[in-house]
């Protein structure tokens, strides 16, 4: 009984420590972000590897998810004779939830894991230490550009995902089900508000971008510098990014729906 209690206590203290170190790491990276902007080429390179290289998976899954939403929505809306509002259903679920969340999950597994593995391997092969020896700050040179690239890429990827999904829903609605394309768009325009749907979705995607990038870079920088350490850190990146994104989504949605 006592040992169980102390186990729980130990776990709690460890996780609070971890959250604390992640926040301190985030602050440290922010404080060392100057180089990323004075030498923007560094960030641009990372945008290429985490943003551009994720384009295909984001666009294709956006299209598929939009089409699935269209098909499933039609199935249910048809019962109420409201299949004309299919555009509203597809657009709102993509803009508010699916776009930011699914993009963040895909981004964490496509780009986040790569960032962790890269930084982790740099640490394992003592490249980071070598940089430090040459008076090059590894946080400013290696970590900060990757963090900022993630923060910049995520909202753009989420917007592309949503746009692609709406296009997929359009394909199903107009070509397969036979809803009039004018009705599809006008219903959507009437129901979707810029402030409450598009802007809130954008805010979500920025927050998720920060969360995923911070976790990915932290896990890489913090990993045990061995082969197993890097592999464990990569796994942790994907798992804790997914959990963090979903938890943050719950909190943000609760605030946004109450109109804050």
């Amino acid at each position, binding site marked *: 009984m006592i040992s169980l209690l102390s186990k729980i206590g130990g776990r709690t203290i460890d996780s609070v420590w971890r959250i604390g170190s992640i926040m301190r790491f985030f602050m440290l990276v922010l404080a060392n972000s100057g180089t990323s902007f004075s030498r923007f*080429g560094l960030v*641009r*390179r990372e*945008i*290429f590897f985490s*943003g*551009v290289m994720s*384009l295909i998976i984001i666009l294709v899954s956006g299209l598929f998810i939009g089409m699935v939403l269209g098909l499933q929505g039609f199935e249910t809306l048809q019962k*109420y004779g*409201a299949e004309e509002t299919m555009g509203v259903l597809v*657009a709102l679920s993509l*803009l508010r939830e699916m776009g930011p969340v699914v993009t963040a999950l895909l981004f964490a597994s496509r780009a986040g894991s790569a960032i962790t593995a890269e930084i982790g391997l740099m640490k394992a092969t003592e490249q980071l230490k070598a940089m430090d020896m040459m008076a090059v700050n590894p946080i400013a040179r290696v970590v900060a550009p990757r963090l900022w690239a993630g923060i*910049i*890429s995520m*909202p*753009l*990827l989420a*917007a*592309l995902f*949503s*746009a*692609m999904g*709406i296009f997929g829903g359009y394909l199903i609605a107009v070509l397969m089900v036979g809803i009039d394309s004018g009705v599809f*768009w006008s219903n*959507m*325009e*009437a129901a*979707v*508000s*810029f402030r409450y*749907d*598009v802007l809130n*979705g*954008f805010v979500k995607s920025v927050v998720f971008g920060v969360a995923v990038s911070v976790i990915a870079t932290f896990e890489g920088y913090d990993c045990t510098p061995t082969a197993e350490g890097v592999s464990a850190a990569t796994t942790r990146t994907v798992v804790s990014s997914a959990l963090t994104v979903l938890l943050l989504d719950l909190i943000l949605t609760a605030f946004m729906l109450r109109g804050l």
Partner: protein
Amino acid sequence: MDRKTIDLWVGIFVLLGLLALGLLAFKVGNLGGEREAKLYRVEARFDNIGGLKLKAPVKSAGVLVGRVKGIHFDNIKFQAVVDLELYERYEFPKDSSASILTSGLLGEVYIGLEPGGDDKKLVTGDRIKLAQSAVVLERLIGQFMLGKASEAPAASSVTK
């Protein structure tokens, strides 16, 4: 991968992303779709506003002429006070009437403006005097049932 290719692809990516954002904002979110600079504000009092919500459309002859700006409760007269913002290019006679309507059985609730015959026009601060409350479906069904119940014995006595 050399520097030029990376720059080109990042450029394409950022442009595509911004384009998607713009598409979502303007085409889907209808930003700037109905930006009306000039508005005037009138109020109407209803006994019951039913399911009327903020930003609900105000329509006359089916055309959007304004939006509901505010809804509050008058604690002296026990009525709902609804602020309407109407577009300045549409003018209505002072004795116009407002009623709360629903488009379809499950559709959105909106305010219908029926123009009157007065020469004077509505201006900011005016009150629409003729205001018809929302039809509450439960009450309507209740009345219908009550009517049926009271006429049922009479009908049966006729057949005898």
